[in-house]
């Protein structure tokens, strides 16, 4: 039978959507938690204390050099062996992706913060704004728009990288796809192409809105010099 007929079964779609939900949940929670982590890391990276900057630099380099898969294995298997810390597979994924996203986003925040001229801080200070008002009303809005394109890029990378969760046994959209293909191997030998095709569009549907939102915001903000 033709592989495309596999897609006529409602149950196939329901299972794929369930898998997509797991993927989207891990990605959403990871990206969501990466934002505050990234803001704090970025702020610490601009710290006046040299030791703090070094520690943050070390953290960033470590995360960048290590393959995400190795980080996942360390979090999932290593932690339980070393400290008896039994993270379930989804939690291990979220921890790793937040550590990764936080480090990368932190570097973007650092770059954006240091690119704001000192005169902006001083003008705000001369107008009587306190440091917090200066940060929230003057510096952060400018920093956010400068780092927006790279941040959206990072978010889509995190969404795509959630597929590594398969290797820890998380049943997310790719795993569900494999299960469907395996279960229908004899009935629909060429089902793989169609199932993976659907998964491709599912990833696309998750990531595409991010790009749209980013482009909208960029257009709305392009009055920034």
């Amino acid at each position: 039978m033709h592989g495309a007929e596999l897609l006529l079964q409602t149950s196939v779609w329901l299972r794929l959507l369930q898998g997509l939900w797991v993927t989207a949940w891990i990605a959403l929670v990871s990206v969501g938690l990466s934002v505050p982590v990234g803001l704090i890391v970025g702020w610490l990276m601009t710290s006046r204390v040299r030791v703090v900057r070094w520690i943050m630099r070390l953290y960033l380099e470590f995360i960048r050099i290590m393959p995400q898969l190795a980080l996942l294995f360390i979090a999932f298997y290593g932690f339980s062996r070393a400290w008896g810390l039994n993270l379930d597979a989804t939690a291990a994924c979220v921890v790793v992706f937040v550590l990764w996203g936080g480090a990368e986003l932190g570097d973007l925040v650092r770059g954006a913060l240091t690119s704001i001229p000192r005169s902006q801080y001083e003008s705000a200070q001369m107008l009587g704004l306190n440091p917090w008002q200066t940060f929230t009303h003057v510096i952060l809005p400018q920093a956010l728009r400068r780092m927006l394109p790279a941040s959206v890029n990072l978010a889509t990378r995190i969404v795509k990288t959630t597929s590594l969760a398969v290797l820890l046994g998380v049943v997310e959209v790719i795993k569900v796809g494999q299960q469907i293909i395996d279960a229908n191997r004899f009935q629909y030998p060429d089902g793989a192409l169609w199932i993976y095709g659907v998964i491709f569009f599912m990833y696309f549907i998750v990531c595409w809105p991010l790009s749209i939102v980013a482009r909208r915001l960029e257009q709305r903000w392009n009055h920034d010099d």
Partner: protein
Amino acid sequence: MTDQRQEAVPVVPVDVDAHNSNSAASDTRINQAGGLQIQGLVKQYPHSDHPVLNGISLDVPAGKVMVILGPSGSGKSTLLRTVAGLESMQGGQILMDGKPLDRHDVGMVFQSYDLFPNKTVLGNIIMAPMLVHKRSKEDATAEAMRLLERVGLADRKDAWPHELSGGQRQRVAICRALIMHPRIMLFDEVTAALDPEMVREVLDVIVELADQGLTMMIVTHEMAFARAVADRIVLLDGGKLVEQSDDAEAFFTHPQTERARQFLHTFAFERGHHAQNLDDQA
């Protein structure tokens, strides 16, 4: 316009102490009339041998305009930044009407076009009064519009900073500082980065503020402007006050010190002299 003002300004009664340039640097008497008093101000960076400001004492009487001249590196910008509270000081004191200066009473306009790029012209002006003075948006907007009217930019209220010329940005920056009702305004080479055609529109605004009796300290390289706007003029060199005068005209025509003569001479061009210099180099 500047010429008119020159005639209109009454000659400031010459205080013998202040006019005597030799005693000016060590002049620490309290000005009873009110205004800003700087006494023995010392500014030195941690890893430097020489102080940037070495015992500066001067008064800016309320409602008067002080122009600070000096070669680059003389400490004049540092002096303004220290008064503004942007730099720490290692000695001396800065008083307003005899009490330590409250930084909220100081407004400043910088050389760089430092409007907030994420806000419109109006947004730039009303942000601080709303955040700091907790004024309502309507109230702040009403005053912002009056200020914009005065500098001739009311029709640009919804423009973004990058849509404005340098001169227009500086005029907005002046409005943004004025809406906080500073008791003293500091202008740090506000026209230095502007195209020559735009210098005039900014200086005209400052002259108008002077006529309205705003207390100001101005660092500038525009000598004609300094001459027209100054009630009191000081020359800084190497972090020290070299000459002080309450008569801008006299300062320019009959400087008391050799250093002032040298400094003013760099702004005068004589063809023969210049040619000779070129010959020397060749």
